[in-house]
């Protein structure tokens, strides 16, 4: 089918891309250079392709790019960079919460959405919030520690 010019707002930047109707948001983002969004199972089981759409974490592999037009999309690169990392990104480094790194963008975005809603999550709430994100390397313990620490860090920042 004919591609259409679609406007996507990603990490505060506006892109115009000619996309076929069967292009998923996942592949549209990767083709635009957002390779921090990972392609895993493409069935909604693994969460490697997690992005925030209007602050809600979704599987980008299960959303057609045309339907993301006009919405605010955030990838993990939109949270911070090497010079100015988000506290979650820094905590994942500090606590060794990444091994191969493939699940990390999705983990951090799912954690971001959790902390936005519950700034002081319990262990159970963290495990529940990350239950759509699979890691096959670290066994999750350090990921949970990193999120707990980032929550404390964000809390301290807010209290100034």
């Amino acid at each position, binding site marked *: 089918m004919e591609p259409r010019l679609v406007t996507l707002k990603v990490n505060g930047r506006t892109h115009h891309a000619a996309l076929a109707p069967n292009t998923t948001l996942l592949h549209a983002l990767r083709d635009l250079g957002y390779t921090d969004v990972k392609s895993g199972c493409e069935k909604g089981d693994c969460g490697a392709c997690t992005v925030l759409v209007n602050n809600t974490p979704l599987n980008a592999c299960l959303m*057609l790019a045309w339907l993301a037009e006009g919405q605010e999309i955030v990838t993990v690169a939109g949270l911070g960079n090497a010079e100015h990392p988000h506290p979650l990104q820094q905590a994942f480094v500090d606590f060794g919460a990444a091994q191969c790194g493939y699940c990390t963008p999705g983990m951090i975005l799912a954690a971001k959405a959790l902390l936005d809603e519950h700034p002081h999550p319990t262990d159970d709430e963290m495990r529940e919030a990350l239950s*759509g994100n699979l890691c096959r390397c670290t066994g999750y313990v350090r990921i949970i520690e990193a999120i707990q620490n980032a929550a404390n860090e964000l809390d301290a920042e807010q209290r100034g």
Partner: protein
Amino acid sequence: MRDFELLQPKNLADALDALAQNNASVHPLAGGTDMLVDIRAQRAQPDVLVALQNVNELRGVTRTNGHLRVGASTTIAEFLKNPLLTEHDALRQAASVFANPLIRNSATIAGNIGSASPAGDMLPPLLAFDAQIELVSKNGTRTMPLNEFFLGPRKTARNANELISNLQLPISNLQTASAFYKLGLRQADAISLVSVAVWLQRDSDMIRDVRIALGAVAPRPMRATRAEEILHGQIFNETNVKEAARVASEECAPIDDLRASANYRRRMVNVYVRRMLEQAWRNF
């Protein structure tokens, strides 16, 4: 992925036009969490998808004269947030174990119904609440008991030109309670081996009314009506509850598959019907 045309109607009238003007290979697209997976696996082969994202008429949850009206596009995540929905224990418990949190943010209630998997998580609680389903097309609107909507695995009474518009759950002024349990092989992202939903209406120590619904143990989600008859108008006690659970395990029709044997499923229906009846009763 398969090539298809994608229509994005701005309102219900345009959506119904799109469904009416196309042939049988046109399909509505809600959250996409089943449809896109099915297209990749070639289980679904639509030529045209009608995206319902902008159709506001399908949104919203309202409570009016004895009914809870749940719009088709209501996401599973909303069943965990909206107080009009969360007060219904069995629905909330089913939503809380539905796939995973990311899927719940996209998947809709009409999508779960339209997919008509015998293991669909929201279906037993909706049957236990005696939901009516409303279908709309250019020719008009019809309503039927949800229990009559499922015809078999992935087969429903929806015509190709129809949309699921909403669900209506009768809300009783009398004391009611409900409970749901899904038995899976893991905590998150599990496809149920067995799921059980019960709904009770109490009159002192008597069961005034009862509905028991089972998932993943028949070609379609089912009501255990013979088990219900055993409890109807009877005293809530161990003997009656055990007998109802035993009868429910007899009237279901499970199969052997890679997740569990039919025999195991039957035994688990017995266990969980009993436990859910006890749990719902404790909630009064």
